[in-house]
């Protein structure tokens, strides 16, 4: 009985916090996060790897609706609301990738059966090579060093990369931002 009462009190508290949340502010933060992740994902997997027409705002809205509807249960004692919503966005994006991969496999099977030999969209692997070539041409050695470090199994975190390359974390952050910007531009994902 005491457990049940505690659960009801907890639910009331969650309800109150969800009611009081500033959804405008959360929406902007979450959409910005989703936009970043979505663009990186498109670059990583190639342009056609994700279902078309799904915007960052759509993903953020899906996450919010799932949490508010209870489909994804948020428990305040395990962390704040925004990080939890971010994890829901990550999960939704992961699910989108899985769905798209299944669809692509089916398409490949169909194409094989039809002996169709169309040009495939550039994959993430192609794009890394494209990025390397462009950086070499522009003599962006600091950025190439990042790629080399990651290729050498350095943990892909700013702190680890900074330690490996002997520079500050702030410097690595700047390099990563520049590298990502160039990568997206080359892949045509800079305005999506």
């Amino acid at each position, binding site marked *: 009985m005491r457990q049940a009462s505690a659960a009801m009190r907890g639910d009331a508290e969650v309800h109150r916090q969800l009611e009081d949340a500033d959804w405008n502010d959360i929406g902007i933060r979450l959409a910005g996060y989703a936009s970043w*992740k979505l663009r990186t994902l498109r670059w990583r997997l190639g342009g056609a790897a994700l279902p078309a027409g799904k915007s960052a705002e759509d993903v953020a809205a899906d996450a919010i609706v799932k949490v508010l509807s209870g489909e994804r249960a948020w428990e305040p004692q395990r962390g704040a609301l925004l990080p939890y919503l971010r994890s829901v966005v990550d999960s939704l994006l992961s699910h989108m990738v899985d769905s798209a991969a299944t669809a692509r496999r089916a398409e490949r099977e169909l194409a094989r059966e039809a002996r169709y030999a169309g040009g495939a969209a550039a994959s993430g692997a192609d794009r890394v090579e494209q990025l390397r070539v462009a950086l070499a041409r522009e003599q962006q050695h600091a950025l190439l060093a990042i790629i080399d470090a*990651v290729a050498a199994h350095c943990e892909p975190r700013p702190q680890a990369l900074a330690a490996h390359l002997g520079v500050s974390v702030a410097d690595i952050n700047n390099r990563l931002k520049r590298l990502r910007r160039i990568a997206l531009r080359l892949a045509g994902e800079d305005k999506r």
Partner: protein
Amino acid sequence: MTDRDPLRGQALADALAEAFDSLAPNDRAAAEAELREVGVDPRGVGQSLRAAADEQRHSRATIPTRPARALWTQLLPLAAMLAFGVGVGWWWRGGPPEQLAAAHLSTAQPRLTAAVGANAPVDAAPIAGGPSATPTPARHISCVELPVEFDDGRDVAPAPLLPNVEAPEPRTADEWPVDAAWHLGRRSLRLAKALLPASVAAWIERGDAGFTVVSPGDGAMHDNYPPSFWAASDANDERFYVDPNDCRLRERATDAISAPLTGLPFPKVDGADAAAGCEVMWNVEATTALSGARSATATIDALDRDKQRDRLVVNMQATSFAEKGAAKPDSGSLRAARRLVFLGPDNLRGTAYLTERPGERNDLPDEPDRTWAYDPKSRHVRTIDAAGRTGMSGAGLFGLDDFNCFDGRLEQFRWKVTGESDALVPVLSPAPLPIERLSATRSQLALPNVVAGFERPDATTVAWSIDGVTLVRRPVWIVEGEPRESFYAYGRIVLYVDRELYRPYWKLLYTPDEMLDATGLCSQYWARSSDGSLAATGTHPLLIVSDRRARADLLRIQDGEVFDQQLPEDWFSMKSIIASQ
């Protein structure tokens, strides 16, 4: 670090992506910067997602937060006690427990009950976003009585003056059209997306707009024009023709440019004909000219997504000589004239525009509209060219060519029909509004006020969301106009024009480099006097939204219109305007 083979290909791309994502926006400023980088207005996103959250919160009486099974095991003892209590209550009241459960539901989910209503059809379920309803027997629905839940959760009455409609046999949600009133919002958009311009569907998808959809019944709107109008239209069959190259109206019998013009000049339009675009637009001109001289005061609000930026108050007066086919005595042959005088704000009070639309002249090339602007401070009059007829308002979207949805000189555009379909179109009322006779020459029409989002203190939608506009399904021509003037502000105009009533409903404005700059919602109304001697058409409200610029202009007529059939002969002259200052 290990001595393993270096990462290559997709594995390297995955690792780099992980490094990139370690910098994903963690604070508000970074999130806004990311959104701006992809060309999205952060404020719009914030409002849209807040609306989505509000919709979700309001669509449920409670927000479950824990897995049902865990909670259920914890609540078993409580449930047993409740069951016991309900049993005792039933025994005491002498009724079945379902009554108590129903009473409980009605208080636990008041919004759901209010939105769906006791008489709501099955298809009304999307209105509330509630659970899918079990089909119920057909019932009579009064649209006037059916509360409608808007996307932001407000319960408001639908637009007035709607006819009662009868609900059909229950249908599944996929069997559209539904003959009863229903709410078109984000949840029900899938039912109607194909019937809307893409930009309008995007408004609804973002939660910027929601509409009541009604079905006035087959043929019901035909009577929005009096029998005399239809008789005159029938008499015009094969009487006129237009050359698609210049879009000028000519009479077949004389091969001359002709007047008078009463009724639709082209009662039958063949969409495949090269001249179809011009024919459709001449029909639009004829329906606009129906009432002759008219006067109204309107406000034009320039709006950002979240607030009003500016308000203009204007007195609009228009007349058409098409019905009479007469030349204006002191100004040569005119087809129409317009005067627009600013009543506010103070710094613009007295500023005026006068437009004379020359009639057709057989012996001369087409003459564009003559437009003048009067500045009361300098007492100076200057001429306005075609480029100056657009973008005069605070938000830069509304211009002289936008009154009545389209008020440009149609011969100055190359028109073509690009499509023929059904569409959901905005109307103030599908039935004609009553015109009241004030005297032998004066009549008035009362128009309902339309409330915009920025005027509601509790609004959670965009500033330009509007109440009171209803959508109906109508057959439309999709007509495209390309201005002949190269310096016109827009490169292309697309209009959705009713195939029977020839009123324009949606207006898409493209920049010269083919980018959609703005979308216009032209809510149409029809009006008739009780004896059928006077009829009118008009646009109220008129909303032009630029999603690209996150701005809008909203024109609303205040109170109503006055029709005057005996204006002074020089009323539409700059001399008269200046004299009245």
